[in-house]
């Protein structure tokens, strides 16, 4: 067995923090200063834009934030959540409500980033982040509360149900019992820019946005790691391992599960607000079941329960989905002089990517160290597979 620290408490977090900071700073420097630099060779400039455009990095980071939240529910506490997109939606609409002119009949400003003459509610981005996080956490508890008696798959169904209901409320929300709560499919467009002290971030300040998203992701990493090592994290693990035994050891199942929902949802809120500023608006159409599954795929593919794995999973999948497939198609066509319409093959390629990655790395890219233990248990199948080999 790998050497483990003598005490969880004295174990330093500095190592990851250093690595993370270096990686983050590097990314920031590249995108903020190197990319706009005029001396950058044209080929490199185009290459970066084709394979790793700044917006793709930012988007991936938002996915990272959310996947980390989902990981707390699915990876840590072992509760299958098929409706995580609901939290994204709620977070997003928090940004929509509190950082735009949506409530045009009001005029509330609180350290917002636009002029005081602008109608609507304009609360400071950083504050909205916190509001979004806590509103989502509250909803996490609300969603969790009626479902606690349920066993895993029934629980999954209830989360799925909420994942359908909440987005539908926003989707039809232009006329929700006579009130317009979401502007329906038209969405709430143009949310306020992010203020960073001296200025507001415009559409081409992606380097700074990147820095902010890196920071938010770091907060989630930090929360994940710290909680994991503490009293609550252990209780989650115990529930994942054996719910009944955990309750017999004095772990209150209800409260512990609710806590995982709440913390997970909190990340959804952060991500939702961040995403709204990323695309400059909130659109109801995004919030569908497919996105919940997409997030789940990030968690599983990356390596459930392992923060770094989940980060990698989120990066890889969001990149493949948004940039990789397109870039691959373009390069393929220009390399081989073909004129294949790759967009029409994305379902095929994306499906194959998921299947193959899972078949060849079933435990995820960076599995949790604990899970590695279980992976060798191929009792029956090894036997029958071996027989086939013999024949």
């Amino acid at each position, binding site marked *: 067995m790998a050497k483990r620290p003598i005490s969880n408490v004295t174990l330093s977090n500095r190592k990851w923090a250093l690595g993370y900071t270096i990686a983050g700073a590097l990314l920031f420097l590249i995108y903020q200063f190197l990319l706009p630099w005029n001396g950058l060779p044209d080929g490199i400039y185009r290459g970066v834009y084709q394979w790793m455009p700044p917006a793709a990095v930012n988007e991936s980071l938002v996915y990272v934030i959310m996947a980390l939240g989902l990981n707390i529910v699915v990876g840590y506490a072992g509760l299958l959540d098929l409706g995580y997109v609901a939290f994204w939606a709620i977070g997003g609409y928090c940004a929509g409500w509190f950082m735009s002119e949506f409530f045009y009949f009001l005029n509330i400003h609180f350290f917002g980033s636009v002029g005081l003459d602008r109608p609507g509610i304009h609360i400071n981005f950083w504050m909205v982040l916190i509001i979004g996080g806590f509103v989502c956490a509250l909803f996490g508890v609300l969603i969790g509360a009626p479902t606690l008696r349920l066993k895993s798959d029934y629980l999954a169904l209830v989360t799925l149900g909420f994942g359908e209901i909440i987005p539908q409320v926003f989707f039809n929300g232009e006329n929700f019992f006579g009130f317009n709560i979401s502007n329906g499919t038209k969405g709430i467009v143009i949310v306020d820019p992010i203020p960073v002290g001296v200025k507001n971030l415009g559409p081409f300040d992606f380097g700074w946005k990147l820095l902010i998203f890196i920071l938010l992701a770091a907060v989630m990493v930090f929360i994940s790691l710290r909680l994991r090592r503490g009293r609550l994290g252990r209780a989650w693990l115990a529930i994942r391992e054996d719910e009944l035994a955990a309750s*017999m050891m004095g*772990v209150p199942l209800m409260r512990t599960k609710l806590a995982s929902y709440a913390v997970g949802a909190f990340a959804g809120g952060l991500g939702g607000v961040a995403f709204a500023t990323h695309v400059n608006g909130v659109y109801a159409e995004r919030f569908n079941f497919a996105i919940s599954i997409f997030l789940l795929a990030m968690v599983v593919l990356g390596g459930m329960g392992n923060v770094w794995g989940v980060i990698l999973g989120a990066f890889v999948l969001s990149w493949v989905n948004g940039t990789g497939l397109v870039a691959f198609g373009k390069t393929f066509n220009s390399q081989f002089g073909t004129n294949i319409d790759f967009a029409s093959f994305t379902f095929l390629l994306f499906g194959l990517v998921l299947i193959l990655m899972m078949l060849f790395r079933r435990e995820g890219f960076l599995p949790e160290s604990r899970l590695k*233990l279980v992976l060798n248990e191929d009792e029956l199948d090894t036997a029958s597979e071996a027989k086939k080999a013999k024949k």
Partner: protein
Amino acid sequence: MTNVLEAKDVSVAFGGLLAVNSVDFNIPEQSVVSLIGPNGAGKTTFFNVLTGLYKPSAGSIQFNGRDITDLPPHKIASIGIARTFQNIRLFGLMTAQENLLVAMHSHLKSGITSTILRTPKQRREELAAEAKAQEILDFVGIGKWTHEFARNLSYGDQRRLEVARALALDPKILLLDEPTAGMNPQESQVFVDFVRRLVKERDLSVMLIEHDMKVVMSVSERITVLDQGEKIAEGSPEQIKNNPRVVEAYLGKAKS
């Protein structure tokens, strides 16, 4: 001697089956009592009632003078009734130490924020908990496995870890369900010594379900016999050994 636990007139029914039938049962302080009886007599069911997993159809349970009949399992565990399982149920993918720390959950105070911020108080608390876990692991004799995953331990060590985990709850009563199943006579003997030491050094009472008569007879101060859910005898090992009803229903020609 006063009783830590008093179960009065406890009955449990499953549909039409009366698995436990009006059983009175007391556990005196610092004692070892045993529950024996034929298969399906209702022993495990009675355990499940004491630990709150099942609720009795009738009767009540008092712990240190407090009525705990309606408390949920995790509350019962946290106020001092700990158990092990007939089939081992450790948290296999957690280390021995973590298994114990989980059991200390209800005694620890730190919440989400203090854990995230790692306040000095939380650090102190965690360090103290770890020290205590180590002490218990040493006590049961698996101190060297602190950071080993539970599922990697050998069967015997897993049984020990189960006991250690239960001890981490700081129980007044420790319920052991067939702890020596799957142990050979040699190991069972070691276990008997361990139970004695437990009672003496940790200020608690042990209640045992066991089919191995050698173990039961040598360690128990009092034995209760259930048959078809009813208490058919109670007394010292000597009395039970010679009780004809017990011999007929349970011991057979009593080879032990």
